[in-house]
């Protein structure tokens, strides 16, 4: 409900007339905006979407900065680097290289006393327990031995033609379809692609 008294008092506040020049200028600018509204809308749309490029780039950079250290701290996927490392070790130890074992940043090279038949099927095996990762680079047909939680574990590595990997130990058998844990470690094993 309106208050007539307040209404009356408010109406005493007069509004000065606008300048004719200001009114004319407003009409001229509004009419110009009306006649160019499609072009203006196009420019504004481009402006509105234009920020996506730089923002997208910045976002990608941010993601890379945040996630790259994590990806480096965890184990790399079957990669070029793994294969290169294995090739370098093979060049050093020729056919006596059994495995390269990396644990907590320390690398242990396992060799045999005798030459072994060459293998074209390099394999990477990961043993994961929490944040701990033991990485083993080896070849199909080799026997690898390592300590897991104070227990010495030995197993044969076998890569099949369909790139499946089978690990055969004294009391366990692992493949991707029959995954087992070993001393609390989860096993992942894959064949490595050629380095070149």
């Amino acid at each position, binding site marked *: 409900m309106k208050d007539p*008294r307040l209404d009356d008092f408010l109406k005493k506040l007069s509004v000065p007339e606008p300048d004719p020049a200001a009114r004319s200028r*407003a009409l001229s600018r509004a009419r110009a905006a*009306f006649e160019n509204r499609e072009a203006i809308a196009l420019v504004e749309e481009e402006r509105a979407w234009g920020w996506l490029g730089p923002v997208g780039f910045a976002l990608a950079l941010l993601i890379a900065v945040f996630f790259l250290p994590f990806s480096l701290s965890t184990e790399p996927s079957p990669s070029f680097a793994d294969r290169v490392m294995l090739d370098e070790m093979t060049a050093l130890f020729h056919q006596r290289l059994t495995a390269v074992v990396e644990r907590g940043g320390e690398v242990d090279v396992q060799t045999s006393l005798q030459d072994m038949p060459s293998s074209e099927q390099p394999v990477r095996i990961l043993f994961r327990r929490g944040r701990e990762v033991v990485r083993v680079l080896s070849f199909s047909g080799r026997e690898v031995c390592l300590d897991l939680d104070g227990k010495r574990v030995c197993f044969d590595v076998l890569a099949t033609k369909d790139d499946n990997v089978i690990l055969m130990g004294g009391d366990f058998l692992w493949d991707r379809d029959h995954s087992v844990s070993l001393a609390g470690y989860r096993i992942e094993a894959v064949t490595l692609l050629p380095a070149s």
Partner: protein
Amino acid sequence: MSLEQGGDTELVKEALAGDADAFSELFERHYSMIYAFAYRLCFDKGDAQDVAQETFVKAARSLGSFHGKSSFKQWLYRIALNASHDSNRRLNRKERLAEVLSGAQRNFERGADYTGLQCALEKLPDDLRETVTLVYYEGMNHAEAARILGCAETTVSWRILRAKRRLKSFLEAKP
């Protein structure tokens, strides 16, 4: 139907079809109303002229987004309200208030009887002043004001009550 005889709806349709004269006619019909509305929101002639111009420039650019859900007039009020918010943001609020108080003092010295009211209105928070302006100056009911302000009708009623309480001291001082 001629431009002079046509209602806002008809003129808007013609403007949407690209008729610049129809848009000019809409301008002529509503400029004074929007200017006065802007003046009562900012109490400065120059600012009010700027807000009114900005309102019609924005209306021209975005006429395609007017779907007739509200009246054209109400749509313009809403644009003017937003333009006045932008204008207020650009201005230093304290400096503007000092100017108004200084002007009020000059008016008081000249014996103008609306000085106190202007000061009282200027001191109202923006939301209350906008509501009072729409209801008391533009003659809208609470539902119409609510649509323009983008709030509930009860909110408008509540704001009017609060504004009247704030203005009470002024009203009581005037017999």
